[in-house]
């Protein structure tokens, strides 16, 4: 994985970019809502501990962006900004 993965100007993909959040045996159910929520929280926990651009955190960021619908992320980000998000981080 390259270091400039976070750069917003990066456009286009190659076949190497075809990867997504893997199947997680902690979330075997059809409903993946918890998988999404867990990944979102895990990212913010990680970001609080190691900083947003840490390799592990970027992994969780990728996972939750892959799994969560855009309007869920938007809502949670808004709640985080307002301080009303129920999560710890």
């Amino acid at each position, binding site marked *: 994985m390259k270091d400039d*993965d*976070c*750069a*917003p100007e*990066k*456009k*286009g*993909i*190659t*076949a190497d*970019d*075809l*990867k*997504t*959040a*893997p*199947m997680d045996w902690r979330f075997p159910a*059809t*409903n*993946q*809502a918890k*998988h*999404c929520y867990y990944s979102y929280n895990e990212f913010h926990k990680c970001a609080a501990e190691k900083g947003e651009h840490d390799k592990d955190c970027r992994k969780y960021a*990728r996972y939750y*962006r*892959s*799994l*969560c*619908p*855009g*309007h869920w*992320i*938007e809502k949670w*980000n808004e709640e985080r900004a307002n301080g009303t998000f129920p999560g710890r981080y």
Partner: protein
Amino acid sequence: MSLKNTWLFPIAYCDAAEPWQLGFQDAATPMMQGIIDLHHDIFFFLIIILIFVLWMLVRALWHFHYKRNPIPERVVHGTTIEIIWTIFPSIILMFIAIPSFALLYSMDEVVDPTITIKAIGHQRYWTYEYSDYNSSDEQSLTFDSYMIPEDDLELGQLRLLEVDNRVVVPAKTHLRMIITSADVLHSWAVPSLGVKCDAVPGRLNQTSIFIKREGVYYGQCSELCGTNHAFMPIVVEAVSLDDYVSWVSNKLD
């Protein structure tokens, strides 16, 4: 299915509903193939039972007609026949249940996917999100897929099935579909792919798809969601992996 001789015997697959169609559309995923095979297996038992029951019925009506058999018999109980008609149907049910459960559980099996695509139902269109390539929360390959109204159809396009933005996916790749809704219940269903998954607000229903061949697959919203429920079709276009990569790259630019 061997495609060795397609140049000699061209095949046109049935990947969209036809007028007055009774049978299945052609399978494009192993799941749909399994569903069709199970249907045919069960139909084998169904027809045998149907013929047997009809034979019994007609035979009884014939032999015990009041003119032919004026004095009715008064059989009250027969243990042997009771045992036979209890055990025998149970065995048939078992033969139906075993392949049925095997198929059901194989559908739940999730292979590690290469791509996640989110389908979000709205009143009355579908939104698709390809977020595997995001590097921030905002930037995302997201588009709405509206039905093409009848007046705007071009020659050869399918009425009530064509959309303005198709879901482009690579063939021969494990896909994870995440299906949800932003308002009421919908259902994301594509017959050729053997997929029918409810879109429920607050739930992220996951289903996996492996498309065996390139093609354009048509489906419709399959949960009654309101007045325009019939006008939110689904079109999946399966392309080669290279074409998919360049499609995504174009969309991201």
